[in-house]
């Protein structure tokens, strides 16, 4: 889609390991600079490592998980940690560790998909509003205002209650709930980028309207949007957890960290690990996303470069 994304794609697999960035040697020195700056801080390295681990865990869950995550074993319910079940078992006798491993799939999927939904819809709306302006802009932005005047969790709660539970619906609910901020951000970006000299230069060079929009305006609006996306990954995961806690998350028996916290709630006194462990998992992943988002902002947003 953009240079930025391409870099992220080409660079990401190898560049996470310390020193690997130079081995992977991205094409342009800009990319190299990007990764160098990004990885210059230890926290970022650690966070990327956490994310890679989380993603690998999600991908390889069937290979890693010691037990089938959804198979009840009623005779073995609510067992404290042991050598068989490192984190114990839940009320249905399911292995908590395995469920946390499988739960990473849900959390990451919720994060990525809902952010993708929010980003794509929000960006399109914002782009149209910012570029076309006038009445169209007013109408779109009023609708965005409407959505923004309802807190995310309540909006998501509504949408979830409307379209029902289930992974897909939860992702849609969170995605739609987060969408307005993308529309706003994109519109603002478009409006400011629109009047920059290089966009004018594009017009003078005979570039058509639509082409100009996608070639010169959109790519230059992306950095803050990408930053917002990384930050929102964590927020989406947290929101899913909240929805699950309120009982409006995904359907059982699928394991989700939020639902696991909720399930473990009643056993807090006897088996605190039941809700502690998934809570820690959430914190780690969300934290990692936030740190990476922060770092991305530093590297991508020149106004903030050096500020953080």
């Amino acid at each position, binding site marked *: 889609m953009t240079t930025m994304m391409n870099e992220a794609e080409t660079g990401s697999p190898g560049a996470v390991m310390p020193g690997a960035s130079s081995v992977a040697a991205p094409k342009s020195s800009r990319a190299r600079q990007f990764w160098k700056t990004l990885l210059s801080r230890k926290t970022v390295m650690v966070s990327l490592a956490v994310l890679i681990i989380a993603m690998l865990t999600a991908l390889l869950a069937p290979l890693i998980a010691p037990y089938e995550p*959804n*198979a*009840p074993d*009623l*005779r073995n*319910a*609510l067992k404290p940690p042991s050598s068989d079940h490192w984190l114990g078992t839940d*009320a*249905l*006798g399911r292995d908590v560790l395995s469920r946390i491993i499988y739960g990473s799939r849900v959390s990451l999927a919720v994060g990525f998909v809902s952010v993708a939904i929010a980003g794509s819809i929000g960006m399109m709306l914002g782009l149209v509003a910012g570029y076309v302006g006038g009445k169209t802009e007013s109408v779109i932005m009023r609708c965005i205002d409407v959505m923004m005047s309802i807190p995310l969790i309540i909006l998501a709660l509504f949408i979830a*209650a409307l379209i*029902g*539970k*289930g992974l897909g619906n939860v992702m849609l609910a969170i995605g739609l709930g987060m969408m307005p901020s993308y529309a706003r951000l994109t519109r603002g970006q478009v409006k400011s980028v629109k009047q920059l000299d290089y966009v004018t230069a594009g017009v003078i060079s005979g570039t058509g309207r639509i082409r100009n929009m996608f070639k010169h305006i959109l790519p230059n609006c992306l950095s803050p949007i990408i930053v917002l996306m990384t930050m929102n990954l964590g927020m989406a995961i947290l929101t899913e957890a909240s929805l699950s*806690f*309120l*009982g*409006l998350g995904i*359907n*059982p*028996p699928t394991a989700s960290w939020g639902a696991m916290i*909720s*399930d473990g*709630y*009643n*056993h*807090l*006194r*006897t088996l605190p690990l039941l809700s502690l462990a998934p809570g820690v998992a959430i914190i780690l992943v969300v934290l990692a996303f936030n740190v990476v988002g922060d770092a991305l902002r530093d590297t991508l947003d020149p106004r903030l470069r050096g500020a953080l």
Partner: protein
Amino acid sequence: GGKSSDSASSSGGSSAGTSETSGGNAQSGGDAQSGGGKSGESVLRVALPLNPRIIGYPAEVTNNGPLPFLDPVVQSLLHFDEKGNHVPWLAESWETDAEAATITFKLKQGVKFHDGTDFNAEAVKWNIEQYIENKRTETENIASMEVIDDHTLLIRLKDWNSSSLEAIGFFVRHVSPTAVQANGKEWAYTNPVGTGPFLLDQWNMNVSVTYKKNPDYWEPGEPKVDRIELLIIEDANTAASALRVGEVDLIQAGNVDLADELIKSGEFDYVLQKNGIGAVGVGLIPDSVTEGSPFADVRVRKAMAHAIDEVALAETFGKGYWETTNQWGSREAYTFNPEVEGFPYDPEKAKQLLAEAGYPNGFKTKLFSGLNTKDVFTAIQSYLAQVGIDAELIVVDEAQVQSLYFSTWEGGLMGHFHSVQPDLGLYMFRHLDPNGAFYAKGIIHPEDVLELLRENQKAPNMQVKTETSHKLQKLVYDEYAIVGKPLYIPMGIFIKQKYVKDDGFGVTHNAFWTPDNVWLDK
């Protein structure tokens, strides 16, 4: 007829995020949150997971849950003893005549409402009329009423029905007609003017209802405590914690695990309500009507029932506080038919039945669960999977549960939440009646069953009633498996500090206690 307890599925599991969020405990000034009240006043604090919406206008109290909030202030003509027998309360005695289809209540004398007006036959009649006006099922069988004298009321029924005495006697509660008429219905919602041992002191919506002693109570020497505070704590965990740290004296435990923990600690007294009166039984009911539903075949219904090990479920999730049964109602009820074979856990048989029905490789279906039955139903899902029934588990909220059982449930399975009270003619009929509101649209209605039900309703005496009841159990479960698999009946669990005596919680009807008798042995 009476009402089963509040929301069907709120009896098991955690209540975080269920139908109702709980209120906090905003006590009025001065009170510390532990034990005793101020300056020698004895105060009883009870945590209940239910939220009353109306206390003072019983005709619109449409479910059983809030009844404990009425007990201190608003009373009825009769109540139950420990075995479920009717005992007098505001009525001194009553007579029933099956032939003539009449009930005659003789009222206690000298009873006054809190506003000082007399409690008499006119008042009772007025109160019953309010119920009729609100289309309450309890009073739908009443043809007319006649005030014989100040303390005698004659009620003529449309048809003789053995349940009507209980319906009118226990479920109709009485408030001062004068007060309601003077101030209006809306006022009455929050201002109960009854005959009870306590007066409403303060009602903090969603938080607590507090009562103070009625000095002019009609029973001498009662009540024994000065104040009662009923705290609305829906969250089982919080309630348990509150009991543990002494913020409350008694709780109705909403969660088995927490209750078990408290009871095992040995620090508390507890009462298990075993007779199931007022309890909500949970079963698994198949939609046998929707087109294409495999459950239209009785063999599939039976196979489904055989596939599930309800004993293991009760053990794991009920921890001994759930009773299992193979028919409608508890094993202790007179309607219990020991000859019913039921569907003991037998996966092989289930598979065989499925094969016979033409599903040797099983089939796909849906399994709807409320929020609170989530864990149990998750286990059930895996039992079903073992015999080849691939059920997609769909957890729906309370409202959706209700709209499902108000229509059909997509050819799948859902929880069968039913009042386990013994009167089958009343309770079972509600679901099996082709025009019934709940579950009726998703199940078959065999003529022989309906015939038996009618017979049961009209039973002139206990013997007929029992006989027809036993026949019904056999037919509905063993023969047709109409309402599928009975799973468990949760016992009401009441846990209290050791000094709380004679509270009556869990002794008779689930929603009934004795605020007039309770005392604190401190």
